[in-house]
């Protein structure tokens, strides 16, 4: 009986709750090419690491499209905006990312993220307080989703009173990112997404104009101002960068927090340790990024030259999937890789990628997840899973539970 290709097993929703056996099988053929015109799947840690630093690999959306598009990537409907730096090669990528970074982190804004620590803690406290007398919550809808959205709004400089309006546009957009939402899915959702993107774009454009006239201490003001030797971004570039930061800035964090709580509830002894020592959250979050990475694979790469990996020649123009989640559990790199172990000395995971496209928002995501998990551990009395495994989102790339029912005995 012919069995489904591994690429299809990865996308198959039936494997969403536990894709790791498929990845283990995948690693047996470190460079896997299953069908003519299909992608080359790379699954070993060292190969992925090497290709993330390889200047013969392109992230340019145009190159990916020329290579025949990608079944995991049909959702990058840009709604008239130019591609964001995620989908560009140097030198355009470098210029946009440098300008974005000058608004976000060191050396220009070294304390922007760190300074949000207090605010993040307040948001988390508010969300947990709002559980009220309930003894069971959906951790996704009531916590893991609203927390990073609120944070990214504040960071960008979306006025607090606009947050509900803003959320109403972001929700359908995020829903449309699901690769299962292809042409065969209801067109209402697609229409809603397009409409939402347009509305969001117009709203952001209005904000950017305001900030250009009257700058404040927020990311949009800095993006609009564009100080420094690289000059400024065009209005369209400001918008595509903001939308990228907005979407990437929370979709993955939702999954990191949810995967994190799920994993901790499956490892109660570690949850207990975190409760006693919030400092452990640093290592826990790193190990989570290895063990349950929110971005499972990077599908949007093509090679612009023939390259050889482990004796296999990948011809110029081929699509490449870098399966980060498989590399993260590669026994060639990590001892006892299937074990969740925040005490391992050396957690150099691929969770944030590596190379020039390594996660832009990593410092933000780390801090959010650390605060979220340590506060949940501290405040929930006797937390337990309602359902294991929980129901998952359809998305195979940005993988995480759609709902996470957690029951508990009370709040501290």
């Amino acid at each position: 009986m012919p069995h489904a290709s591994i690429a299809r097993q990865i996308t198959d929703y039936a494997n969403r709750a536990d894709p790791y056996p498929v990845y283990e099988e995948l690693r047996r053929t470190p460079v896997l090419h299953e069908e003519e015109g299909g992608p080359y799947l790379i699954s070993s840690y060292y190969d992925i690491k090497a290709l993330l630093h390889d200047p013969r690999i392109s992230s340019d959306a145009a190159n990916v499209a020329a290579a025949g598009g990608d079944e995991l990537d049909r959702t990058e409907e840009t709604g008239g905006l130019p591609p964001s730096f995620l989908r560009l090669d140097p030198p355009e990528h470098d210029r946009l990312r440098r300008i974005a970074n000058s608004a976000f982190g060191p050396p220009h804004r070294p304390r922007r993220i760190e300074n949000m620590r207090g605010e993040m803690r307040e948001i988390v406290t508010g969300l947990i307080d709002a559980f009220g007398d309930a003894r069971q919550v959906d951790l996704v809808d009531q916590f893991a989703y609203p927390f990073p959205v609120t944070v990214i709004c504040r960071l960008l400089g979306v006025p607090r009173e606009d947050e509900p309006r803003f959320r109403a546009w972001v929700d359908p957009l995020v829903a449309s990112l699901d690769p299962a939402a292809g042409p065969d899915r209801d067109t209402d959702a697609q229409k809603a997404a397009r409409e939402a993107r347009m509305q969001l774009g117009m709203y952001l454009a209005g904000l950017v104009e305001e900030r250009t006239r009257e700058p404040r201490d927020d990311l949009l003001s800095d993006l609009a101002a564009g100080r420094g030797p690289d000059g400024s971004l065009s209005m369209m570039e400001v918008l595509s960068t903001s939308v990228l930061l907005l979407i990437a800035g929370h979709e993955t964090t939702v999954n990191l927090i949810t995967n994190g709580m799920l994993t901790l509830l499956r490892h109660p002894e570690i949850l207990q340790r975190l409760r006693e020592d919030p400092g452990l959250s640093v290592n826990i979050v790193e190990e989570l990024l290895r063990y349950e990475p929110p971005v499972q694979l990077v599908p949007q790469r093509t090679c612009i030259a023939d390259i050889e990996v482990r004796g296999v020649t990948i011809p110029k123009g081929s699509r490449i999937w870098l399966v980060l989640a498989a590399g993260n559990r590669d026994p060639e790199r990590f001892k006892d890789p299937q074990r969740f172990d925040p005490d391992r000395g050396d957690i150099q995971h691929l969770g944030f990628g590596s190379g020039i496209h390594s996660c832009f928002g990593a410092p933000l995501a780390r801090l959010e997840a650390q605060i979220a998990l340590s506060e949940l551990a501290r405040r929930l009395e006797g937390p337990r899973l309602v359902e294991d495994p929980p129901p998952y989102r359809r998305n195979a790339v940005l993988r995480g539970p759609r709902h996470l029912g957690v029951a508990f005995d009370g709040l501290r």
Partner: protein
Amino acid sequence: MVADYVEWLRREGRIVIVGASLAGLRAAETLRAEGFAGELTLVGDEPHEPYDRPPLSKAVLLGKASPHHTELPHRREIDAKWRLGVAATGLDLTAKRVRLADGDEVEYDRLLIATGVRARPWPKEEEARLDGVCLLRTREDAADLYRRLRAGPRRVFVIGAGFAGSEVASACREMNLPVTVAERAGAPLVGALGGVVGAVAADLQTENGVDLRTHVTVTALVGDAVGRVRAVHLSDESVVEADVVVVSLGSLRNTEWLTGSGLGAGPRGIACDAGCRAFDFRGIVTDDVFVAGDVARSPHALFGYQFLSLEHWGNAVAQAETAAHNMICHGADRRPHLWMPAFWSSMFGVNIKSVGVPPMGEQLMITQGSLAERRFVGVYGYQGRVVAAVSFDNTRWLEFYRGQIERGAPFPVEYPTVDRRPEGRRPVPAGFPDPSLPTHGPMVTLSGYSPADQQLVFHPARH
């Protein structure tokens, strides 16, 4: 017998480490981590516990870090006897004794030499003694220079545009101090990175307001009546008034204390094999004397087995760990030190990083980015192989080129890369100066094939 000796050594032997800096500390930690339970002594001529030097020419000069707080973090307890503030003055290989400046002697069963390098002083002693003439190597040097820069001198004069000199110039400009840099070669960093990249560094300096003078040497430092430096005379007969002069002429290996000991030690360092064991002057390897860090010269398989001297932070750590491991294990468990040379620097807001051995390169190709934009990756080739790469504000790609060097990938680089510009399609001569001329700061020195090489001038195997 031999096995018994190693077991005995691990249990109750005496190990002496001469040199209490980065390499010495990391070696001591590795010895303990790998189970050495005997007596451990660290000898250092500076009065401080080991501290980190890279910040001294960067953050410390800008007042962003204190020169007195760059101690190296201890990875573990090392339970050692510290002999700080006392230099080693001699070595008796037969009696296995290290002589100290205070007349004391320390006996060892195994010895690690990690005495490093010191700043090359201004050769005219009287001029070097003028107030305001500075070196930059130690914590005290950095504290003194910081104090002088803070006082707002009319002009700072830097002799030598290697990495250290260029970093000092960068700090001066960041503090808005007028600075003149004099360089014998045609551009800064030429010894380390060649003339093509040096030209970029030159533009970087002049655009940032440095008064850069190339193809000149300093002929005299002139003081005032009370012995403060006042002016610098140059070989083009010009005179520059300055109240701070930073002598940045590279380094000297601390090997004089070994003169007459019989070890293969000289101005180029102490020759050792890939396992970090020192050679004696006859080219015979010793078995109880090991070497690590800046003072070592060791053969490297990737670079034709020539002896390499590396003044690199990462090399000091890796070589110390390997030396320590090899000191207390059986022959078959020993590891070779095959570190990929790598160093970094930052100046005028640009991050510079290199892997491999650029001075070995005959040709250079800009495979990504552009020299004019000062954001690029340059790849060095030697006889059809990739031997090094350098990046300006493009660090994240270097890991790829490191892999290319390791596998001896072909040069020129013919495959396309993202951001390849028309200027990067063809290789150009890398523009290194004649290697028989001493330069002040190549950071990586190829020093030929002879372990007993004690000459200062050498002729590399290049036709």
